[in-house]
């Protein structure tokens, strides 16, 4: 049985809730399967993200991103697409990529890690989440649920 951890990262600022909405949608559609599954919503976890990568076989991370694309666009970021670490470290501001890079150096990354980004526009406190972001979160939740189900079927075939 795989130990799977799904982490939605965000903050209460408008579209920056994209990761939270995705894991809410996943939890809502009852993705439990036979995985040992943990779903968590994280508010800018900083260095604490490293601890959440430990003792898992498969970690799925969903975060908002700003790359100049169309809001609502979903990207699966391969490891070679993880942006190079550029901004130094801060106890408050260690970003997802900083935490992943540090975990990588320490050999703490799980054997499978999927990093998804949902493109957002400017995100400001107190704003509502845009309709395109809500739709993208639903779509990504379905994609992750399908991935989990497919992997489960594969595991069952392997077992038999």
């Amino acid at each position, binding site marked *: 049985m795989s130990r799977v951890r799904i982490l939605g990262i965000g903050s209460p600022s408008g579209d920056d809730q994209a990761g939270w909405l995705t894991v809410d949608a996943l939890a809502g559609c009852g993705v439990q399967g036979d995985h040992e599954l943990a779903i968590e919503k994280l508010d800018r976890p900083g260095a604490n993200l490293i601890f959440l990568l430990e003792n898992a076989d498969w970690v799925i991370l969903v975060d908002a991103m700003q790359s100049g694309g169309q809001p609502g666009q979903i990207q699966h970021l391969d490891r070679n697409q993880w942006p190079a670490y550029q901004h*130094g470290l801060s106890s408050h501001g*260690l970003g997802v990529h900083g935490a992943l890079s*540090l975990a990588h150096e320490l050999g703490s990354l799980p054997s499978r890690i999927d990093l998804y980004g949902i493109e957002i526009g400017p995100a400001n406190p107190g704003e509502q989440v845009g309709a395109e972001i809500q739709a993208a979160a639903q779509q990504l939740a379905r994609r992750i649920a399908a991935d989990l189900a497919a992997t489960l079927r594969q595991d069952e075939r392997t077992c038999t």
Partner: protein
Amino acid sequence: MTERRSVVIHVPVLARVEGEGALDLRIEDGDIAELRLRIFEPPRFFEKFLEGRHYTEIPDMVARICGICPVAYQVTAAQALERLFGVELDPWAQAMRRVFYCGEWIQSHSLHIHLLAAPDFFGCSNAIELARIAPDAVRRGLRIQGLGNELMDLFGARSVHPVGVRVGGFHGAPSLARIRDMREKLRAALPEAEALIRWAAAIPMPQDDQAFVSVATQHPDVYAIEHGDIGASDGLRIGVDAFDEHFAEQHEPYSTALFSTYHQRPYLVGPLARLNLNHGHLPNPVQALITNIGYALPSRNLFHSLLARAVEILLALHEALRLLDGYRVPDSPWVPVTPRAGVATGCTEAPRGLLWHRYEMDDDGRVINARIVPPTSQNQARIEEDLRLSLLNFGLDHPDDALRLHCEKVIRNYDPCISCATHFLRLNVERA
């Protein structure tokens, strides 16, 4: 004719300092003509937000000031209000406040040592590079930090912006089984913290002897953390209420943060100031270890701050273990509170140093006005003074990059938390 050269450098680092800050350095004829630690982070008006709020809301609101040291803000606010309301905490709650606080020291100190400060001394620009050359040390640091988080979570329900403290005690009490589990983890961490101290003591540090006044809370019986009087290395010993008689905050036009002075002079708060004043109260095993490594206290070298943090981690582990020995689940984790009007003051030792709160309350237990003096603003004038002395000691003829790095190292000794935001230090050097 001497050529007058002017150099301006913008360095888009350094996020290993908390908050929006910049350093302006102008060197003329081989001397420092101007040195300013400029804080341009917009003020956050927390004190204003608190006005009109009921006392029951204050611990949770002030916890939001800092994601790294929320316990310090909660416990200081609760202590201030409990003093005003005449609340006598249950001995269980008194002890567990200290344990809760130990968790924060362990977490914050380990984070600062490994992710923020240590890379400087290994020629690394960040912890990721440090992890390449010293992976075991970084792993150990993260384990210790994680344990601090767990201890905060145990009493606060979560480690970031915990919600466990209430005026009068705690909202809940952990079960005996969870405490047993925690005690095993704390005990297992003791050798790790001892190894951390030895590792930190072996890091070659610049020799930088400076005269400064150390200020920290002091307690007659224990190493002061969550309560005590205010003391200084010049012999001052005052009650928490008398803070304003000796310490002043003033505005400098180039900074959005207030500068603090003690009798019109800069002063130091934080782990090195605490160790300088309170090392006589370290538990015996911690005393023995620092004697063994030859750590002479009091120290006048701010570069000893990293080692001071390591020592306080071991202290916090011992304290938490001592206080959790014989743990019992109380009948009630809190005592009832009746608010009353008046002025409340409280003071504790946040990981970065002395934290002082003052609240004027009305009859209904609502805040009329609030004042919060955090450690970083108290250290700002000292940081500027330190930079000036340290740069002169280091030598101003070094290339700009070397000067910048030296300044950053000096600033990071203080672990400044200019605000709860990330950002960077720009160094502008002008030479004429």
